[in-house]
């Protein structure tokens, strides 16, 4: 219990941390885009679209992420045709202009899909409350200035809504980082999984979990710091204009 972890195990934890960050970042990007779309759908004119959107939110928000991950991991494998599964499981090399990306494992894809579907509902609700936080007078003022509805939305409503929803949005990014730990249940070798593995190999429980906990806290603190920086720069920009 009194010595530190061997470099080999630190490397495991470090790799796990890399997967956690990669998963959280890609989920955050996708869920932000989809969540924004969801917020627009919930404000749609058509009743049917509103119902579908709120039904999606109800189902994905009120069932545990763990069950959803298992659904995607075990369920999708049986739903997809055989050929698609073999295609997903064979490694492909993605070449994006000099940058080669390794094809992720099926665990990663299932985890990414589950986390994205789950986080989209929360981020969508943050955007929706941001949109609702813009006073109705702003719509009328934009219309009175002769802006078309689309231009009014783009130049008047959206900037204000984004500023309102920014702090809760960053809170959701923190949740994505924390929720990514659940993907260990479907066998993705991210940080929690790695810490558990190091623990079983070395019996240095305190060091293994301590290192993982510190890395999580560090990530959350960095997101918090990013929010502060973002808000400062935003405040300065709006001051200047």
């Amino acid at each position, binding site marked *: 219990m009194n010595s530190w972890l061997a470099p080999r195990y630190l490397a495991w934890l470090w790799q796990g941390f890399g997967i956690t960050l990669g998963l959280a970042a890609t989920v955050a990007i996708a869920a932000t885009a989809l969540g924004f779309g969801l917020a627009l759908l919930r404000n749609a004119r058509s009743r049917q679209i509103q119902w579908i959107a709120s039904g999606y939110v109800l189902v994905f928000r009120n069932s545990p992420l763990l069950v959803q991950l298992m659904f995607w991991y075990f369920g999708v494998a049986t739903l997809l045709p055989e050929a698609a599964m073999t295609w997903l499981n064979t490694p492909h090399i993605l070449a994006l202009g000099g940058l080669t990306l390794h094809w992720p494992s099926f665990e990663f894809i299932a985890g990414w899909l589950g986390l994205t579907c789950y986080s989209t509902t929360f981020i969508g609700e943050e955007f929706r409350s941001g949109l609702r936080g813009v006073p109705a007078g702003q719509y009328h003022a934009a219309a009175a200035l002769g802006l078309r509805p689309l231009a009014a939305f783009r130049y008047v409503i959206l900037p204000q809504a984004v500023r309102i929803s920014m702090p809760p949005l960053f809170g959701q990014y923190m949740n994505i980082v*924390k929720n990514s730990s659940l993907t260990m249940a479907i066998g993705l070798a991210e940080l929690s999984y790695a810490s558990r593995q190091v623990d079983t190999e070395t019996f240095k429980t305190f060091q293994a979990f301590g290192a993982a906990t510190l890395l999580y806290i560090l990530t959350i603190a960095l997101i918090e710091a990013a929010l502060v920086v973002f808000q400062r720069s935003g405040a300065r920009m709006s001051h200047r204009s």
Partner: protein
Amino acid sequence: MHLSVLLDNLPYLLLGAYPDGPLGGAALTVLLAITSALLSAVLGLIGGVALALTRGLAHGILLAGIGFFRAIPVLMLIFWTFFLLPVLLHINVPGLATVVCALALIGGAYLSHAVHAGVLAVGQGQWQAGLSLGFTRGQVLRHVVLPQARRIMAPSFVNQWVSLVKDTSLAYIVGVPELSFLANQVNSRLMVYPVQIFLLVALMYLLMCTVLDRIAMRLLVYGGRRPIAEQAGFNTSLGTPRPGPI
């Protein structure tokens, strides 16, 4: 679809091995959720009141402690309690107790901030009014501030409890036979119906969460006794007299 297979397993998913063995499944999930919800409410009340009453260094330490629980994943805390509680207490702690402990701590940390915000929202005037009536600080808190803060805090409590119901599924990781654990067990036994099984389980959680949401909201926000001040014709949220009937 093959509903009969699902129906055969439904009692197992609901109760586990109950009449012949330990309680499990959805019943255990409900039990787990209720226990940790009550504990988290108690911790949240204590933490929130402490946040409202402390200043300076003590306040900072308290904030850091609460921040720690809010920054780490629930799963990580379950690992900590699962491996450290037996070491600290020198007894064999069952997995169930460690999960309750972890969920209560996380829930309590989040609720502390809700309670703190609720107490602040009631306003300084209410404290002064209570003190000038001869109440002690404890009495003001108990009889004046907290009853008014209850309505403000209620939505946060309900939200936290709903996410707590979902988080009970993490007990799966340490082998507690609650609903998700059994779902996984049934899935590996049957092999061929993962979609149906996990849809059914998700639906069961959905039902639990929505029912909890409706009942708790009704009880905490709309139900209960109305504050005396309001009955006497005072608008409690502003502390100013409401215009009487003309």
